[in-house]
Structures are given as C-alpha cells and as structure tokens.
C-alpha cells in the first residue's frame, strides 16, 4: 500500500464540508425553481421563449414540452397483467498495447423477464472477440481508443435488443425493451467509422419500431423501448426555467451558457422535492442538435423524449431519467405502461430494475474472467508458434503489484 492516508484525510474532511455547503446553498435555489415550475403553465409563452432561443441561435439545450403542462405530475397506474421485458447491457475488455496480443472483447448480456408469469426468465450472453487490424486500428493505423470500443458495444446492445424483440414478435403481450443508459447517442471524433456506427444504431431503433408497427397492426401489443439513466446530472428542466426568467433581450448564447439563479442546481435535486415514490414528471423533449438529427434524418418517430421518475421508497428518493423514442412518448397509455413496469421491476430490487441488474451481471467480464481469457489467448498463440510476451512495462507493473513471496528454498 503506497497511498498515504494520513496526508489524504484532511483533504477528505474538507471535501465533506464543501459538499455540505454546496447542498445548503443549492437548497434556496431549489425552492425558487420549484415555485417557478409550479407557475409555468403558460405553454404559449414557454414555446415563444424556446422559439426565440432557436431564432437567436442561443445554444439552448433545455427541455421543451411534449404534450400537456410541463409541471404535471403523474401517479403510477397498475401495470399490465402480463408483459415481456427484455433488458440488455454490455461489458468489454479494452485492447491493451502492453498485453501479449492485440484484441478486444465485447460481451452483451440480456435477460428476458415474463412479467405477470412464473415462467423462468431467459438469460442471454453474446461474447465477441475482435483482433483484425480493421477492428483494432483506426484509419491512421493507431490502436483504437476506449471510446471506440464503447461505441461499438452500444451498437451491439441495440442490435441484440432488436433481435431479441424480433424473436418474440408474436408474443401476445406488450414488449418492453430496456437499455442501460441514454438512447440519444452521437459518437465522437475518437470513434473510427462513427457515421456507420450511428447508422447501425439508428437501424436497430428502426428495426424495433418496425416490430412495434407490425404488432400494433396485428393487434398483439406495442413494443416500448426505454433508456434507463440512473445516475445523471441533467439540467434540461433547470435550463428551461432559467430561459423563462430571462427578458427577451437576454436570450442569447452568453447568458444561456450559465444557469443564472439556478447555478449548481440539477433536475435530480429539483424533482427530489416534487415527485413522491412512484410518481413521474411530464414527458419532455431535449432540445439539441443531436436530437434534431434523430428527428430529421431518421424520422419523427425517433426523436428522443424523456421523463423523470422517482423509483425510490418513502424517505429514500431516487430520481431516474427514462428516455423514450417518440413512437412511445406520444402515447399516454404507453408512457403509463412504461412507468408501471419499471416501478414493478424496481420493487423487486429496491430501487433499480431487476432485469437490468441481471443483464449487467450477465454482461460483466470480471478480472478473473479477463485473466482466464488472456491465458486462453496465450495458449492458442503458443500452439500457433507465436511469441507470447507482455511488454517490459507490463511485466514490471505485474511484479511490483504482485503479492510478496519468499525466495524459493533450496533443496537440502
């Protein structure tokens, strides 16, 4: 152990006091925001301000109403008697320049859970190994970055979800597909072939929508798709409230970049005081170029909406953000079913959906499994007369971090 905790302890204590100060200073702003949200029932004025921000190219990244008032609160309804929930999650082993071979692994885990039935849930695991130059190197021949692996894993998650939904396309009950994390993805510069990945991701959403449409036409129930965001610092509603406090002349990029009177406040803190366990906010739409591209390039049914939901228990709130494509978000009945089914799942575990917890468990590659994978790869390399050697740097690290051992005793 080389971390000197006696030097660190005063810093940890200061950090604790700082957190307490920040909470107390934010609470006043929170009260102001709650009052403003309660009074924000003039939809015409709200839309006028949002349009003004768009016209002024003010970089507005807040929420916009979808239907009804933005300050609505919805109690949960009873979940459907039966439904099929499909959750997917992913994990990975990143490529390591210091390892004996260059490769990366993705593992997609999933669980199909039959709500309202005692039927045995169906676990799914889909590991894939990548090692060709096209897979592990970018256009300049450099080893790909973690962001690239993450992006490919996200696309695979969506494809696995679409495939699992397609296999159950004839199920005469509503289908709910759950992904861990947001639905709105725009892959960055670090991701080679990002355009293709984005196209693949949106194709998976389109596939899900096609299954939904076919099922609705056949009268056998919808397909809901949800991105479950547990830990978030979203400020979409706070940004909207900030916009509403501005005079028209102030609606410009330099003012909207800051949060004004609501500095330090986020939507989670705001809704912790507004939503009782089980209740949800109004459905809103995030205003951003990414979301606009989803709507304009993929279709109006694919713009991403969201709502906040308190999946906690009395005295222990947990405000999560649920993202939905527009084909789900525009149906009041669909949103109510999503709310009820997610809450039902959270009750099994306490404050997190059981299906997602199991999908994560099925996906995760433990350090022990990673070590086993490395050994298997090394064995195959040796069988094929390849040199198996870690970099000197990695060997040095392994030796320094390894457990203390005695020198071998000489035979007597």
């Amino acid at each position: 152990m080389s971390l000197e905790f006696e030097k660190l302890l005063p810093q940890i204590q200061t950090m604790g006091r700082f957190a307490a100060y920040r909470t107390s200073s934010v609470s006043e702003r929170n009260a102001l925001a709650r009052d403003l949200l309660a009074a924000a029932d003039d939809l015409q004025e709200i839309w006028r301000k949002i349009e003004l921000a768009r016209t002024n190219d003010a970089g507005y990244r807040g929420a916009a109403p979808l239907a009804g008032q933005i300050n609505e609160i919805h109690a949960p309804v009873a979940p459907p008697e039966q439904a099929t929930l499909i959750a997917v999650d992913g994990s990975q082993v990143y490529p390591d320049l210091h390892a004996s071979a260059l490769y990366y692994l993705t593992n997609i885990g999933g669980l199909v859970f039959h709500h309202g039935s005692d039927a045995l849930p169906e676990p799914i695991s889909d590991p894939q190994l990548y090692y060709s130059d096209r897979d592990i190197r970018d256009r300049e021949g450099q080893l790909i970055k973690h962001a690239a692996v993450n992006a490919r894993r996200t696309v695979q998650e969506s494809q696995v979800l679409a495939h699992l939904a397609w296999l159950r396309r004839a199920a005469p009950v509503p289908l709910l597909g759950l992904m861990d994390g947001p639905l709105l993805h725009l892959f960055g510069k670090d991701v080679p072939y990002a355009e293709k990945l984005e196209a693949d991701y949106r194709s998976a959403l389109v596939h899900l929508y096609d299954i939904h449409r076919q099922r609705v036409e056949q009268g056998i129930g919808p397909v809901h798709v949800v991105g479950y965001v547990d830990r978030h610092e979203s400020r979409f509603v706070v940004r909207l409230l900030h916009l509403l406090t501005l005079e028209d002349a102030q609606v410009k990029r330099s003012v909207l970049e800051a949060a004004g009177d609501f500095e330090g406040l986020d939507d989670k803190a705001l809704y912790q005081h507004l939503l009782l366990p089980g209740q949800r906010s109004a459905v809103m739409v995030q205003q951003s170029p990414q979301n606009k591209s989803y709507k304009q390039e993929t279709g109006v049914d694919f713009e991403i909406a969201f709502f906040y939901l308190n999946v906690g228990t009395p005295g222990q709130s947990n405000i999560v953000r649920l993202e939905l494509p527009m084909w789900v978000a525009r149906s009041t009945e669909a949103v109510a079913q999503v709310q009820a089914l997610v809450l039902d799942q959270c009750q099994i575990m306490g404050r997190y959906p059981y299906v997602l917890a199991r999908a994560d468990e099925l996906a995760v590659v433990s350090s022990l499994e990673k070590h086993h994978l490395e050994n298997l790869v090394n064995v195959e390399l040796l069988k094929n007369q390849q040199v198996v050697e870690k970099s000197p740097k990695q060997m040095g690290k392994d030796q320094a971090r390894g457990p203390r051992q005695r020198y071998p005793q000489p035979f007597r």
Partner: protein
Amino acid sequence: MTAAGTYDIGRVLRASTEGFTCGLRSQELQYPAYGAFVQTMHLNGDGSLVVIGVITAIRIDDDPLVRQLIMANTMNEAALRDQRENRLVPVEIDVLSIGYMHNGHSIYNLPPRPPMSLDPVGLCNADTIEYFTEGLDFIRLILKARNVSTEDLLGAAIRGAAQSRATQHQRAFLVAAGRRLAGC
C-alpha cells in the same frame, strides 16, 4: 442415477485425506442431507479405491444481489426462479472421510490419498451403506473428527445406516452401534 447406482450430487472442489468439499448448483440440492453417506471414486485411477464419507455441513454463500433482494422484501416468483435456476448459486458440501473400499473390502482408516479435484461425488445407495457399515469402526473416525458436532453427526450417520437395512434388522444394528459407542 449413475450406472453405479448412486445419485451424483456434485464434484470435488478441494480435498485432503481427512475429508473433502464438493460443489454443486443450488437446484441440485434436493438429495444431499446432513449425515448422509457419500462416496467418490478417483477418475484417473483404476476405480478400485472408493472413498466413503459422511456429510458434515452444507453451505450456501450469499452475494450482494441476494442481499438486496432480501432487503427489498418483495420477492417475485419469477425472480426467485431466476436466482435459483439460472444464476450459478454455488452450494458447498463438506464431507468427512470415514474409510474407503479397496477391491471390495471395507477399510476403516483414512484413505491413502485424497480424491482429486472434479472427481464426481455421489450419495451411497442402501446396499453400499449396509455393506460398509457392517463393521462399526467408522464410528471411531467420526468421534475423532475436528470442528464438527460429533454427537449430531454420529446420530445422523447411525440413523442413516440403520435405515439402509431391512426393517427387521434395524433394531439389531442400532443396539450394536450403541454398544460400540458405550465401549468407546
């Protein structure tokens, strides 16, 4: 049921000459019982050495997900089945060696070598138990066992050995075992 007439209950995880621990999945837990007679045969050997033991403990370890489900206190039947049938919930069974059978002869000493990892472990059938417990020297190894409740274990093992016999022979066996115990 295996060809040898025993119910396979798991495989050896770790072993010594004094005993061994075998692992199995939770849904396979309907047959093994505390004090039951089990046997294991060395897979790589010639099959002539069969270690006989009695179950001294059955353990199911917890994990964070199971703890969370208990804390939530709203057990869902499908989730329960998922936990028990899909998840690899490991059950560990400790076994005390009480002798071995070599070329068909019962020997009431510790085996000359322990079973190997992954050797199959099965419950002894009634014929094997009756044959092995014709001699009562296995009682000595149970009484000498460390870190187990010898009274409870002895009671369970003797009861199991008696039940493997025809009803009319059970009382005679129990009396003989009692006399042996009184002499120990």
